C-alpha cells in the first residue's frame, strides 16, 4: 500500500472509493503524523476522534453502496478561525481561549457534509493578523522547511494561515482550510511549497468565521496541487443566506473544468509589480513562469495597474478600521475571557479584559482602526482609502480588457527566519505587497509553487483572475504546475 500520508485529496478520495484502502486507515495515518509533529506547533487542538468518526461514516457508506461526497475519506486541518461545534475555537487569541461554539461555520459544515473529517484546529496569527505566524497566543508555528546551509534556523511558515501551510507541507494533513484577508492563504502557501486559492469575495460563506476585516475576509483551500484545490473549493463554496455578502450563484464544477491548454489565452504581466531591488531568485521564477505560460500556448501581454503602490497603505487603513469595529464584540460579557479587577466597574472590566486578552499586533491594529475612524480623521484616512480602493478595482477592470489572467510573484522573498521582522511592523506588512491588491478588488487569486531559491526554499507564483473566474485561475495554475514540476519537500527533522 502506498504511503498514505504522501497522498493528496484526489488520490485519497479515489483510493477510498476504489477500496484500495479504507478511510479509517487514512485517518489513522494522518493522526499519527499529527501526534508526532508537536515541534511544528501547527495545531492548537487535535481531534483524532473526529477524524476517525468521519472516516468510519465514509467506510460504512461505501460498504452500504451509498454515493460518496467530493471529499469522502479525506481528513483535513481546520484553521482555528472557523467555528466548530463543541471544539475550542480561539482565532489564536487568549481572549477566546476555552470558547466552544454552539454552532458550526457554514464552510466547515459543507466540508463535513462532503465526507471530510477533522484532524484538529490549526494555529494561525492572532485574529489572522500577521504574515509569519508569530502573533499567536499559542506560540509560533515553525515551518517544516529549512535552508540548505545546514543551519537549523527556524523559519516562518507564513501567515496568517501558517498552521495550515506547515501542516500540509509536512504531510500532517493532505489539505487544510485557510482564510485570506490580504494574502493569508497565498503567502503561506508560497512560503511552504504548496498550493492555495482565495476565491472571488462571496464564494465561501463568512458565517461562523471569526471576523477580521469583513469586506476582505474570504476562505479557501490549501493543498498539494491545483486539482486538490479545485475539489476542495467546490466543497467549501456555495450560497449561504446567513451571510449577507454571499454570492447567490451556482458553484461551478471547477475540477471537471480543469484544462491546462492556454492557447488563445492572454496572460497579463503587470509592470508595476517589477520593483526596484527585487529579490533576484523571485525575478527569475517570474521569468520562468512567463516562459511556461508561453509554452502552454498563452500570449503574454504587458499590462499596467497604476495604483499598485497605494494598495498596501489603503489596506492598512481599511483592514484595521474594520477590525476595530469587528473586535468591539470582545467585551468579557458574552463569551471568552473576563478580567474583573477588584472593585472594577463595567468600563474598567472592558478595558482590563481587552488589555489582557488581545496580543500586541491586535492592539496595534485596533488602535490604528479606531484612530482612522475617529471624528475629524475619518475623511482624510478612511474615505480616502476607500476611494483609492475604487481606483485599484478600476485598474484591474481595465487590465482584464487586455488579458484573461494576471501572472505575478506571490511574495517579494521566500520565507525568513522567525524573529527577523517582529520588531518592525512595517517591514512585516510589506510581505503582502503582491497579494493585497487582488484582495482589495475581491478577485480570485492563487499561489502555485514555482521552484526553490538559492537557499533551497520554495517560491510561489501568483495568478489573479477576473471576478467569478476561478476556473481561469485554476487552469492557468495547472499549466504552471505541469511545467514547474515542483516535487521538492522538506526533509523531516521534527
Amino acid at each position, binding site marked *: 500500500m502506498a504511503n498514505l500520508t504522501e497522498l493528496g485529496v484526489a488520490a485519497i478520495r479515489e483510493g477510498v472509493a476504489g477500496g484500495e484502502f479504507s478511510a479509517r486507515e487514512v485517518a489513522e495515518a494522518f493522526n499519527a503524523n499529527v501526534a508526532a509533529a508537536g515541534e511544528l506547533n501547527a495545531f492548537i487542538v487535535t481531534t483524532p476522534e473526529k477524524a476517525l468518526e468521519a472516516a468510519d461514516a465514509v467506510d460504512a457508506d461505501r460498504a452500504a453502496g451509498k454515493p460518496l461526497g467530493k471529499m469522502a475519506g479525506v481528513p483535513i486541518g481546520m484553521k482555528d478561525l472557523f467555528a466548530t461545534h463543541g471544539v475550542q475555537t480561539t482565532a489564536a487569541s487568549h481572549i477566546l481561549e*476555552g*470558547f466552544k*461554539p*454552539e*454552532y458550526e461555520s457554514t464552510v466547515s459544515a459543507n466540508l463535513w457534509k462532503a465526507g471530510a473529517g477533522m484532524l484538529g484546529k490549526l494555529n494561525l496569527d492572532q485574529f489572522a493578523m500577521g504574515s509569519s505566524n508569530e502573533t499567536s497566543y499559542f506560540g509560533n508555528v515553525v515551518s517544516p522547511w529549512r535552508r540548505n546551509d545546514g543551519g537549523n534556523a527556524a523559519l516562518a511558515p507564513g501567515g496568517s494561515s501558517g498552521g495550515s501551510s506547515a501542516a500540509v507541507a509536512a504531510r500532517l494533513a493532505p489539505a487544510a482550510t485557510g482564510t485570506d484577508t490580504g494574502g493569508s492563504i497565498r503567502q503561506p502557501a508560497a512560503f511552504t511549497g504548496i498550493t492555495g486559492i482565495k476565491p*472571488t*469575495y*462571496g464564494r465561501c460563506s463568512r458565517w461562523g468565521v471569526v471576523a477580521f476585516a469583513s*469586506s476582505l475576509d474570504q476562505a479557501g483551500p490549501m493543498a498539494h496541487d491545483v486539482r486538490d484545490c479545485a475539489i476542495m473549493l467546490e466543497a467549501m463554496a456555495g450560497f449561504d*443566506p*446567513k451571510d*449577507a*455578502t454571499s*454570492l447567490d450563484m451556482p458553484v461551478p464544477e471547477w475540477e471537471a473544468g480543469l484544462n491546462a491548454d492556454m492557447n488563445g489565452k492572454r496572460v497579463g504581466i503587470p509592470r508595476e509589480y517589477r520593483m526596484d531591488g527585487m529579490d533576484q531568485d523571485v525575478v527569475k521564477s517570474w521569468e520562468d513562469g512567463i516562459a511556461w505560460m508561453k509554452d502552454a500556448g498563452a500570449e503574454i501581454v504587458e499590462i499596467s495597474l497604476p495604483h499598485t503602490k497605494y494598495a498596501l*497603505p*489603503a489596506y*492598512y*487603513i481599511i483592514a484595521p478600521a474594520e477590525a476595530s469595529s469587528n473586535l468591539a464584540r470582545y467585551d*468579557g*460579557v*458574552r*463569551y*471568552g475571557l*473576563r478580567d474583573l479587577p477588584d472593585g*472594577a*466597574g*463595567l*468600563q*474598567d*472590566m472592558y*478595558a482590563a479584559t*481587552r*488589555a489582557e486578552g*488581545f496580543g500586541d499586533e491586535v*492592539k*496595534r491594529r*485596533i*488602535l*490604528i482602526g*479606531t*484612530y482612522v475612524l*475617529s471624528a475629524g*480623521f475619518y475623511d*482624510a*484616512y478612511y474615505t*480616502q*482609502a*476607500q*476611494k*483609492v*480602493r*475604487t*481606483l485599484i*478595482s478600476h485598474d484591474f477592470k481595465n487590465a482584464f480588457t487586455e488579458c484573461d489572467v494576471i501572472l505575478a510573484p506571490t511574495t517579494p522573498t521566500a520565507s525568513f527566519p522567525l524573529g527577523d521582522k517582529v520588531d518592525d*511592523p*512595517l517591514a512585516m506588512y510589506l510581505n503582502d505587497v503582491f497579494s493585497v491588491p487582488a484582495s*482589495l*478588488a*475581491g478577485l480570485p487569486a492563487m499561489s502555485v509553487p514555482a521552484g526553490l531559491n538559492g537557499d533551497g526554499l520554495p517560491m510561489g507564483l501568483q495568478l489573479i483572475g477576473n*471576478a467569478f473566474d476561478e476556473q481561469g485561475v485554476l487552469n492557468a495554475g495547472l499549466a504552471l504546475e505541469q511545467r514547474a514540476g515542483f516535487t521538492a519537500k522538506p526533509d523531516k527533522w521534527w
Partner: protein
Amino acid sequence: MSVDKATVAKIASLARIKMSDEELDRMAPELNNILTWVEQLGEVDVTGVEPMTAVIPNTLRLRDDVVDADPLTAGGKRDQVLSNAPAAEHGFFGVPKVIE
C-alpha cells in the same frame, strides 16, 4: 500628522484597551511610523471617485418577514446563548454593578 502619547491614550480609551505608561511610550512611535506611511495616500488624485462600498456588486437581501424565519437564531436558545459566558447568572449575562 503625528500622534503623541496623550492622543494614543485617548484612542486606547476609545477602544477600551487599558494601557500602561510603558505601553503607550512603546506604541506611540510605532503608530506614528504606520500613520506616516499610510499618509502617502493623500497624493492620489481622487477627484470624482466614489468610495468603494461593495467589492463585488451584490444586492442585499431581505429575509422573509415571519417569526423565527431562521430556526438557528430563533428563540428558545437561552442556555446555548449563555453557555460560553464568563459569568451567567439566573439565565442572564452577569456584569459588575453599573448603578451606584
